[in-house]
């Protein structure tokens, strides 16, 4: 088996607040290969963004703490890496696109300068003319006229700002792109444009991508593989085909599917997942989904289930121990 580009092993992250310890990630494990596009799905508070911040070692200082596990990026141990090493990785080898294009750009710097800054940091050998040309190229590539490079972010609409965010992320041609809800703040027709653009650029540069979203539809259409995160753990993973054919799913994934109305099939009534997200300050002993699960048995309350794999599709639920057999 070849080396993975990114390996996260049994990652535990907690936030130490005055009132309580919030267990944001509780043994998250995933791998990503070069050029792969992976969708990470989960609801608010599942730990999706914490995962992205951990990969870049950008967890809030003092409050956020990695307590267990490892993150290995292309042979480098991220958790042990010093600031100097991380600076070489952030932006150059792993880039991030943020959810809110309105606040993730510097309002008092022209968009051209913001992109130029990335090159200045990571490509000191380039001369000024080369860098300027590169900025023009990347702007055109994301569909913004290069004549607008001297304008400030407030002059651009939300979709345009997200295009600039993408340009900034891709200008250094990173190997891995972390996109944290990149289209949540945008309208559907603009969302389609942006996702389309991201996919094309991803193919062009053979970039690996982690697309974090709560929208199952976005994952189904734009990713190859998918992991479903609940209470800081991966509870199901597989290819998009395996997960979305809905033949075998984790009860939580099934619940997500039942909660959303569909464009083509009719249902009389949506079936919401009962109860609320597990309290991250007070995690149950067994399966974290047990209290909301309609298939829950005694063992679920006392013992945390392991991953049961069938080929590339794995589910963290005791149900599949019995059913799967093999």
């Amino acid at each position: 088996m070849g080396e993975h580009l990114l390996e996260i092993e049994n990652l535990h992250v907690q936030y130490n607040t005055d009132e309580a310890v919030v267990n944001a990630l509780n043994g998250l494990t995933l791998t990503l290969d070069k050029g792969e596009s992976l969708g990470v799905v989960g609801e608010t508070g599942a730990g999706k963004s914490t995962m992205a911040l951990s990969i870049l070692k950008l967890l809030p200082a003092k409050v956020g703490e990695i307590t267990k596990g490892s993150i290995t990026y292309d042979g480098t141990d991220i958790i042990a890496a010093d600031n100097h090493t991380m600076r070489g990785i952030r932006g150059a080898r792993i880039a991030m696109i943020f959810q809110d294009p309105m606040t993730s750009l510097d309002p008092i710097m022209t968009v051209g300068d913001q992109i130029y800054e990335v090159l200045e940091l990571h490509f000191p050998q380039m001369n000024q003319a080369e860098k300027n040309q590169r900025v023009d190229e990347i702007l055109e590539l994301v569909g913004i006229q290069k004549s607008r490079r001297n304008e400030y972010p407030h002059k651009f609409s939300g979709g345009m700002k997200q295009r600039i965010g993408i340009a900034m992320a891709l200008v250094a041609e990173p190997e891995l792109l972390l996109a944290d809800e990149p289209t949540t703040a945008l309208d559907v027709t603009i969302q389609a444009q942006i996702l389309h653009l991201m996919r094309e650029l991803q193919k062009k540069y053979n970039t690996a991508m982690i697309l974090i979203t709560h929208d199952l539809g976005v994952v189904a259409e734009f990713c190859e593989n998918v992991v479903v995160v609940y209470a800081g753990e991966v509870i199901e993973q597989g290819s998009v085909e395996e997960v979305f054919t809905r033949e075998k799913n984790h009860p939580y994934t099934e619940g997500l599917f039942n909660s959303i109305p569909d464009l083509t099939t009719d249902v009389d009534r949506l079936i919401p997942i009962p109860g609320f997200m597990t309290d991250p300050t007070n995690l149950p002993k067994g399966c974290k989904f047990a209290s909301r699960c309609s298939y829950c048995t005694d063992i679920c309350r006392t013992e945390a289930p392991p991953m049961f794999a069938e080929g590339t599709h794995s589910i963290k639920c005791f149900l599949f121990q019995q059913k799967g057999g093999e």
Partner: protein
Amino acid sequence: MQTPLIETVNLKKYFNTPKGLLHAVDDVNIKINEGETLGVVGESGCGKSTLGRTMMRLIDATEGQILYKGENILNYNKKQMKQIHTSMQMIFQDPFTSLNPRLSVGDIIAEPMKVVRNVKGKEAIRQKVQELMDMCGLPDRYYNIYPHELDGGRRQRVGLARALALDPRFIVCDEPVSALDVSIQAQIINLLMDLQDKEGLAYMFITHDLCVVRHISNYIAVMYLGQVVEYAARNELFTHQYHPYTKALLSAIPTTDLSRRGRERQLLQGEVGNPVNPKPGCRFASRCQYASEACQEPQELREVSAGHFVRCHLIK
């Protein structure tokens, strides 16, 4: 024919801006019958929220009529309006800012009754509040707590309970589930539909989410830059779309249905245009792949088949 519960006739709302007249709502004609839901879809800035607010008379219309049970409420004075507002209520998108943070849940729900005095006496109000909380799935122990202690879904339930306090017949729901996670979203949608079955409420459901709108609506109006560009019964609209914008909108929605995965998408070029001083022609023309000379002419909303209206000259 039965008189619709609420109807707008050539309703217009223009705003004066330094750059000119902003056509937020332009010539909108919609009808909603008792017990039915009209879904209003469109992208940000298309005027769907302004339409809702204008119909509630939270802002005053520029021109046109709003008929409630056949009577034009735009002619009503303050006193009459206060009366009619008991039958028309609104729930808002953002459950975090639409509740008064300094009132407890019980007080928030009781407030409309204290203002309108439809229920008199402390005990009676308290009892009604508890009924409403029960109806909206809020446990009794929330009576004395404050909105910041609740999550988004429960806050939206409080907003709904408050709207129901005056026994309305018509509720404008302005993106009530957009800020919620899918599992919570499903709970709120189910609640809204149950209440409609039980009380025969009429809803105007404003959203940008076509999947949700398909699930909840009887009729759907698609808006683009202040105008209704397509209007039809739900099944009709989802089987035959005529307007190029509706088509593009439907094709842009990502779905979990794998069979739609490889479909050819109609990607729209460019972004929503500017509603300030729009040209007389079709407002979608700049992004439309079928645009021609004829699109410079003003477009009428025409009936192309029974009950199906489209604003595009290409559709015969």
